[in-house]
């Protein structure tokens, strides 16, 4: 266990290091001068030069990278170029939003996926199975922005049941916060649930073929007990791993959903920051997202070993 954690920490550092290099280089080859964006059309070349100096943009890239990494290691992600707020402060404001959205989306996803997956796997080849498969495929196929737009059109514009968009922190107004999150969370949740249903179905089908399921029946268990007592847990193992790996996709998928529903989360932050060349914010936010993804996968691995006693948390390579 200790060796597992050490090893994972080591890996995490390597990956984060690579992520930092990738994002740093990416951001630095972005066309567009942040100094110019800060100063706007009114700026004189002298001013721009001065500001570039101040921001350290005239240093060699290696030096810039090094400076940035040293700061990051001290917990300082720098300040936003756009509004000079500390990146950490901005992140702290955004994280709860994204967290709320993510948790809610997963909640919806699981609420839909588990029953759908079980029904379609245990009634393979029936109309239930077909409709659940079709739902799952549709969910995967509908672009998130189209679904979001459709939701707004139906529930906010036409029916007027839900507020179209916006965000209120949970702490400020619990009910309203949830109400506002309903559509974005459903938009992400439906897609996620579609993926989960597909995965659960196929992994359940495989598990249901296995010998120990036959043993279960041979013991005299009824189908219900076999499915819930023996099959589900085994089938969930790959599903959980895959959803861990999909985490990155969902953090990213939220980008557009957040934009459509004006949810001020991390995704929107990254998009606007890329477009406004707010390098420190882009770097900080992406580092955080990557960190979150890695961390989640770390926990997924632990969960994995809890669910599956065969998996020992040892230092071995996969």
């Amino acid at each position, binding site marked *: 266990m200790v060796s597992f954690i050490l090893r994972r920490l080591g*890996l995490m550092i390597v990956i984060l290091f690579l992520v930092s290099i990738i994002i740093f280089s990416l951001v630095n080859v972005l066309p567009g001068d942040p100094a110019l964006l800060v100063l706007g059309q009114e700026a004189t070349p002298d001013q721009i030069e001065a500001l570039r100096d101040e921001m350290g943009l005239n240093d060699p890239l290696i030096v810039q990278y090094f400076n940035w990494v040293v700061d990051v290691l001290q917990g300082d992600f720098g300040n936003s170029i756009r509004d000079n707020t500390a990146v950490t402060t901005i992140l702290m404001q955004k994280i709860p939003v994204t967290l709320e959205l993510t948790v809610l989306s997963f909640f919806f996803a699981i609420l839909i996926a588990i029953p759908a997956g079980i029904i379609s796997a245990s009634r393979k080849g029936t109309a239930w199975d077909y409709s659940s498969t079709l739902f799952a495929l549709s969910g*995967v196929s509908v*672009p998130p922005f189209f679904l979001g737009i459709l939701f707004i059109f139906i529930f906010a514009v036409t029916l007027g049941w839900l507020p179209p968009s916006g965000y209120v922190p949970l702490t400020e107004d619990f009910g309203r916060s949830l109400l506002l999150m309903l559509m974005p969370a459903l938009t992400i949740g439906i897609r996620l649930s579609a993926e989960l249903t597909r995965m659960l179905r196929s992994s359940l089908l495989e598990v249901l073929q296995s010998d120990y399921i036959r043993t279960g029946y041979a013991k005299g268990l009824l189908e219900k007990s076999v499915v819930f007592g023996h099959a589900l847990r085994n089938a969930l193992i790959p599903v959980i791993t895959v959803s861990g790996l999909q985490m990155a996709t969902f953090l990213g998928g939220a980008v557009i959903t957040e934009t459509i529903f004006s949810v001020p989360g991390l995704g929107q932050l990254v998009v606007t920051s890329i477009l406004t060349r707010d390098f420190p914010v882009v770097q900080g936010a992406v580092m955080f997202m990557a960190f979150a993804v890695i961390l989640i996968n770390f926990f997924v691995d632990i969960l994995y070993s809890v669910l599956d006693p065969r998996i020992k948390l040892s230092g071995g390579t996969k």
Partner: protein
Amino acid sequence: MEQATEANVKQKIPNPRVEMFKAMMGRFFQNKLAVLGGFFTFLLIFMAIFASVIVPHDPIEQNYSEIMMSPSADHWFGTDEIGRDIFSRVIYGAQVSLQAGLISVGIALAVGVPIGLISGYYRGFWDEFVIMRFTDAMLSFPPLVLALALAAVLGAGLENAMIAIGIVLTPNFIRLIRAEVIAHREREYVEAGKASGLRDWRIILIHILPNTLAPIMVQATLAIASAIISEASLSYLGLGTQPPDPSWGAMLADGQGYLSDAPWIALFPGIFIFITVLSINLFGDGIRDMLDPKLK
């Protein structure tokens, strides 16, 4: 005499390739949804290829006296905010989307397959500490964010969007292929090949690659579907196709503003993205079944 029997034999036994193909087709056609998906996929490809013949109007011709007209006999899907025929634009949009899907996946395959093959076959330091960690790093980025950043770096435009999506998809293929190769590398037929004194490249290309083709194909079809969505997303954010080329994503972005007055502007491209991606997904599922001889 030898000759005679040989000819004889060839005539008598049914060609096994044909038999295998028939069995595969059988499995494919058993999956009704896949057949439907395949049908639509080919219909869309047909549409894209013959767009210029099919369309009733020029997709970029503007008619300011026919702005935001609802669907009619002349304009099946209505007209958009500068009076263009949406049906014609949607048909042309198939070109963009299918290109985007095929080319970006092509890029990912072209880069991912060789790297995955070599990395998985030789393992060792490069595999463990460079390639795998690098793909790990790439995969811990939210893909859309990565695509967005790449597209911003490369500049807007369909080609660049395809390259960006291709790059984002690549690590997935590297991983998949590497895992497959590692699994096959330990299989006895590969060892037997080695034991027969075959060179590595021959083992990799002639023996391992064809055996990993099935999962690669499946992943590729699914990747085409997601590449289409990604292209639409980038176009939606303004980093995809350039106007006036009709991209479904861009049309959707334009139409979003007119949802309450002219919902058809956004609705039809949206439905087409959906149908296309769904068809390809279904088709991909069918191919998965087709390539799995374990299925009866």
